[in-house]
């Protein structure tokens, strides 16, 4: 990983980051295998650069971004965010990235656009998990947000962690970070962003619609069918009897910034 030019951004609060080793060796990235350690060991053959990010669909100015140039952008800032996985564990990650809104504004969304669809890459020769036929996952991995969620100042397009370019296992060369949603919304290795006038399909919702909704907002009151979401295991203890659980916060602690987006919605139905 190369060093990134970055500066402290807002919303970082008073959080202590999870050790670098855990952030880079405890990952869900099924393109590189299903085990938590697989992405770190099986992503070595992946070539994140050169890379072109396309912003297309209902935009007035379609954009094709050279990610190598983007990596030199002075707009890159550090955001230390809580990361809550739907599997009931959590980390704190110091991301380096650009607010997604900045890039979307450059593409000038058409007034008809209501949603944003994200598409990851398909490269089975470099991503062994994409050859795992049993999983039933359709590649590419796809995710989506409502346009107002995508434009929220918290929503980040991350290019790095810990002041360095993203390791392959963390979603190189660029990935989405939506800190008030479960981690699987944070689609990795993004190739295409499309603005749409309808809600796009999302990978986990397609696989198990009763377990993973389109919104996937962190919510301690709405349980996963197989486990409670009220608390979370804190990653980083490394000792069997010293591990801790903590209460999960509504919207992962970002309610002040995002609760308005869901005013009047039934969050049990729109989970």
């Amino acid at each position: 990983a190369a060093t990134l030019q970055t500066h402290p951004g807002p919303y970082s609060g008073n959080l202590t980051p999870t050790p670098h080793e855990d952030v880079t060796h405890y990952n869900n990235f099924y393109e590189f295998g299903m085990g938590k350690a697989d992405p770190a060991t099986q992503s070595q053959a992946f070539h994140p650069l050169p890379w072109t990010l396309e912003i297309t669909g209902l935009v007035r100015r379609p954009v094709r971004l050279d990610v190598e140039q983007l990596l030199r952008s002075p707009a890159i800032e550090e955001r230390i965010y809580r990361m809550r996985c739907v599997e009931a564990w959590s980390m704190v990650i110091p991301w380096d990235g650009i607010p997604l809104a900045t890039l979307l504004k450059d593409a000038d969304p058409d007034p008809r656009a209501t949603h944003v669809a994200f598409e990851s890459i398909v490269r089975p020769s470099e991503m062994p998990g994409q050859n795992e036929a049993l999983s039933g996952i359709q590649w590419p991995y796809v995710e989506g947000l409502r346009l107002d969620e995508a434009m929220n100042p918290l929503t980040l397009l991350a290019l790095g962690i810990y002041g360095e370019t993203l390791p392959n296992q963390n979603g190189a060369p660029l990935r989405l970070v939506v800190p008030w949603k479960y981690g699987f919304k944070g689609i990795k290795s993004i190739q295409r962003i499309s603005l749409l006038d309808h809600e796009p399909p999302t990978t986990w919702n397609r696989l198990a619609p009763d377990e993973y909704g389109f919104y996937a907002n962190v919510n301690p009151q709405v349980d996963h069918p197989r486990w409670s979401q009220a608390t979370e295991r804190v990653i980083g203890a490394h000792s069997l009897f010293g591990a801790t659980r903590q209460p999960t916060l509504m919207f992962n602690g970002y309610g002040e910034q995002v609760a308005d987006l869901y005013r009047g919605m039934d969050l049990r139905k729109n989970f």
Partner: protein
Amino acid sequence: MPGVLKRHWRLVLYPVGMIPAVWLVWQGQHGALGADPVNVFERSLGLWAFRFLLACLALAPLRRFTGLNLLRYRRLTGLLAFFYASLHLLAYVGLDHGFDWSVLWSDMTHRYFIILGMSALVLLIPLALTSNALSMRLLKRRWKFLHRLIYPAAILAGIHFFLSFKTLNSVSAPYLAALALILLSRFLPRSRIGNGT
């Protein structure tokens, strides 16, 4: 070798079967279970329980199809399955949830994933309790009937195991295939099998 040792040497296999549990605790205490040690510990114990359950179930078809008679290891493998399933439950209750009974109560009343796993363990309790020669003598024919409970227990455990992954995958598929084969082999008509030679 004294006669007693000769007759009971198999007892040493019980502590041998517990080595994985000791190894897991040791790893857990020395940072070798990774960033989420409780989860790995809990899942590994569950997997060992399922392995021993499959081993126990495989002994009858093994004799039938290959003639290799290892049926005397049914008690060993069955009791080890029960041992690991109990530790698996204890890890979930104690280590994972810190004996938070309200969470456990809601898990046990709402979540079919947990209910399936716990039901499998409950079905194994009478089998473990009657796994001694005295019970066999007292229960006579009913003992055999009672011990068929291992089949529903294995089916429940298999569904619980399948559900513990987000999707089917190359880790879980071989175990599930083994369970399916063992269960199906019971339905093969005897006449077509011959005498195993």
